[in-house]
Structures are given as C-alpha cells and as structure tokens.
C-alpha cells in the first residue's frame, strides 16, 4: 500500500484507506450483522411491548412501530461509531498507524479514509432500517422525498457519531478505552426522548435531562419525517446539532491525530 500512497493524490489516498476500512468490515461478519440485527430485534420487541402507550392521550402516533422507527437509526450509528473507533484503536495498537506515518500519506486522508468505513456502515444500516420499516407497514408521513431526507439525516448522524468514535480512539489509543465509552453512548440514547415523547414523560428530572440531551433532537428530527410530515423546526434542530457535532469532533479528531503523529 505504501508504494501506491507515495505517488497518489489525496482522493486516491482516501479511497485506498476507505476501501481498506470497508473490506475490514465485510471480512468480519460479527461487525456487520450484530450492529444491524440487534436494533431491529429491539425495534420488533419494543413495537409490541410498548404499543399500548399509543392509547395515551397526546401520544403522537397511532402505532408505536412508526414512533420507534427512529431508534434503530440511532443505535446503528452508535454501533458504527463503536466499531469504527475500535478498528482505529487496533491500528494504533498494532503499529499500523505508526507505519502509515512514515509514508507520504496526509493526515486528512488518514482521517477521511478511516471515517469512510463508518460512513459505509451508516449508509447500509440506514437503508436496511428504512426498507424493513416499510416492509412492516410503517408509513412515511413526509412521502418519498421525506424518506430520502430521512436517509440523509441518518447518514449525517451516523457520521457525527463516527467522528466521536474516531476522536476517542485517537485520544485513548486502545480498544478497551473505546469499548469503555459504549455505555456512555447508550446512556445518551436511553436518557433522551427516543422511547417516549418528551411531553408525556412524567418524571420532571428525566424530561429536563431529555430536553438538554442533543440525542433527543436527532431522534425527533428523524421521527418527525415518519409521523408528522415536514416539520422545519425539528429538521433544522436535528441537522444543525448533527452538523455541529461533525464539525466539533472532526476538529478534535484532527488535533488528536496531529498530536499522535507528533508523538510517533
């Protein structure tokens, strides 16, 4: 790979590393199947287990499956971030990153290539969740255009979490540390409005936490396209927060990479 890198342009370098990241995912079925299957199992279980909640006055949807379809997109993004981060940590631990640092590969290519794998996972899982939802009778209130926007938003969210996973991997440099952040990801999801509408959460402290939790707005943006239609405010908040997270964690990742390469 290093010979190819020496005489290549930035897009080629990115392509080489992204291709490696994608091939690595495809060669590990556990990395592909579990992150995709687990959110679908949980969706199926929750859709039946919590369907009675749709009888509550003020519940925004007649079907809990419609309401909950946004959750797998978030979980898929979390798993993609975790796996992407762990792969990068493995590269750091086994010296691959150090060897790359000796080649003319640019830091930007390294980062973009690494994120390419996570982005691939985000696209595949988002499409699968949408198709599964449609097969099981979910109606997209915003229509075909809304379904495309839903995919776009899911991919941006997935990319934002991937940037976070990359930052943690570059800072900590070990797979264990990345794994240690997994509960935090899930705390963010569970302490949000993912499973219940904010206006129906009875515990004040939980509603407050959910209101300040940015994940709530990501979920609500995805959900609005499924159950409400075109809700400009929800979409702006979801895209805005996700884009801000991308910018923030990309900048932090870039800085962490520079520091790691200097140490190398």
């Amino acid at each position, binding site marked *: 790979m290093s010979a190819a890198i020496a005489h290549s342009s930035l897009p080629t370098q990115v392509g080489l590393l992204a291709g490696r990241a994608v091939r690595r995912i495809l060669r590990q079925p*556990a990395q592909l199947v*579990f992150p995709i299957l687990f959110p679908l*199992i*949980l969706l*199926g*279980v*929750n*859709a*039946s*287990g*919590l*369907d*009675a*909640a749709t*009888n*509550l006055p003020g519940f925004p949807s007649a079907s809990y499956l419609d309401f909950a379809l946004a959750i797998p997109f978030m979980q898929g993004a979390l798993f993609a971030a975790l796996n992407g981060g762990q792969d990068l940590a493995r590269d750091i631990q086994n010296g691959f990153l150090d060897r790359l640092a000796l080649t003319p590969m640019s830091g930007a290519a390294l980062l973009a290539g690494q994120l390419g794998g996570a982005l691939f996972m985000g696209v595949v899982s988002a499409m699968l969740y949408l198709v599964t939802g449609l097969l099981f009778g979910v109606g997209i209130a915003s229509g075909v255009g809304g379904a495309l926007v839903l995919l776009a938003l899911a991919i941006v969210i997935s990319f934002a979490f991937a940037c976070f996973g990359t930052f943690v991997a570059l800072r900590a440099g070990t797979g264990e540390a990345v794994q240690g952040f997994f*509960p935090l990801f*899930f*705390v963010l999801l*569970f*302490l949000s409005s993912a*499973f*219940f509408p904010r206006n*129906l*959460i*009875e*515990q004040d*402290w*939980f509603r407050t936490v*959910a209101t300040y939790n940015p994940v709530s707005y990501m979920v609500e943006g995805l959900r609005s396209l499924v159950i409400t239609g075109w809700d400009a405010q929800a979409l702006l908040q979801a895209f805005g927060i996700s884009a801000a997270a991308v910018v923030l964690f990309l900048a932090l990742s870039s800085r962490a990479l520079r520091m790691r390469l200097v140490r190398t």
Partner: protein
Amino acid sequence: MSALARTRSVAFAVAWRGIHNAFTNPAFLLPSVLFPLFFFIAFAGGLSGVQNVPNFDFKSGYTSFQFAFVCVQAAAFGGVFTGFAIAADFEFGFARRLLLAAPNHGGIVIGYMISAMTRAAFVLAVVFVAGLISGMSVDGSLADLLALLALALAVSAVSTLWAAGIAMRIRTMQAGPVMQMPVFILLFLAPVYVPLNLVAGWVHDVARFNPATALLEAARGFISGEPTKVGITAACLAGMFALTVLWARGGLRSAERAG
C-alpha cells in the same frame, strides 16, 4: 476427605476467588452494578407515563413494576458476566491449571455459581436502595421480599450455569455474545414494559409461553404484596436449573477432554 468435603473445599475456594476479584477490582463489579441501575433509571424514569395506559393495573406504581424486571435482569446478566470471567480464565490458562489442581471439577462450577449469586445479592441491594431513594413503593412484606431475593438468586444460578456451559465449550471471551444474546432475547420477549394483557402482537403470543413471563409476574407479585404464579415460577426455575446443570456438566466434560 470425603467427596462432598472435596467438592465443598473446591467450591468455596473458587467462590472466594471470584468474590475477591469482583470486590477488589471495580472494573469487574461496576458494569454489573451500573447496567441494572441505568436500566432502572431509564425505564422507571422515562417510561413512567406508561402507567396511565388504560387497563394498566399494577397497584404499586411503575417504579416498582420496573424494579421487579431489573431484579430479574440484574440476576440473569450477573450470571452472564460470570460466564465472561470463566471464558477469560480459560483464555489466560488459569482454568486449565484449576482443572489439573482441583480434586473435584463439579466444585469449580458450583464455586463460580456461588460467586455469581453473591454478586447478584450485592447488586440487588444497591438497586433496591436506589429504588427506595427514588420513591419506589414496596407493598410486599419481609417474607415477600425474601422470596423475591430467592427468585433472583435462582435466576442468577440458572444463568451462570447456562453461561458456564458455553464458556467451557468455546473457552474464549469471543463467546460473550453467544452467552448474552439468548438471555437478552428471553428477557425482552416477556412483558417488560406493561403487563402481559397489554402486550400486543407477536410478542404477546411468545410471552404467553416464555418462562421469563412467569418469573417477572412472580417478582412483581412479591414487590406488590400480592404473590402470583409462585408455583409455576418455582416449577419453571426447577426445570431450567435441571437443564442448565446438564448443560454445564456437558461443558465441563468438553473442557476436561480439551485438557
């Protein structure tokens, strides 16, 4: 030394090691405490509005309703975490040395089971205190609470035997998902969020025949002071215990053959 005394000696030694490791290394104990606590907070806090659903008839409130689930879940996952530890012991070679040194191999599995049950009792105590702090209503008597503890410890024993059977067959930590997923699926295909009569669709059909449903309903009966399905639950646990003993014994034989 009689066979029973040898078994007891090995079991207590393995149990003490497991308990010592768990309570002196926060990295071992914290996940088994934090996960149930987190689920308790997330479910009892975030989904409390579910108790207003028509026909939701659990008199002690939603926090108690979810506490019973978290008790069973914590006990079950405590057993799975012990399975991870057994797999790690095999991966790092400790279990092989243990098999060579121990005069009675059954005692090893019993020891792991005792350590899992001790950890489960500790985790349940922590979650119980968290529940009381958050205003959980406990309508059951002391006898009901002791019965709930006994139920949770039995679940812990069964899940430890299940996970031990896997760990001793596969003998690598990569077996983690194989231990975890069936337990997770069994638990979540039961009435987790609402009583069985309010569960809809295919999950309702599965939950009717899922033994975890009886366990959850009995646990909820104990916490609300209205014991229910105690006989069915005891029979389910006895059946699962017998099956998992056979399963773990098969795993032990497999590990012995592997040397």
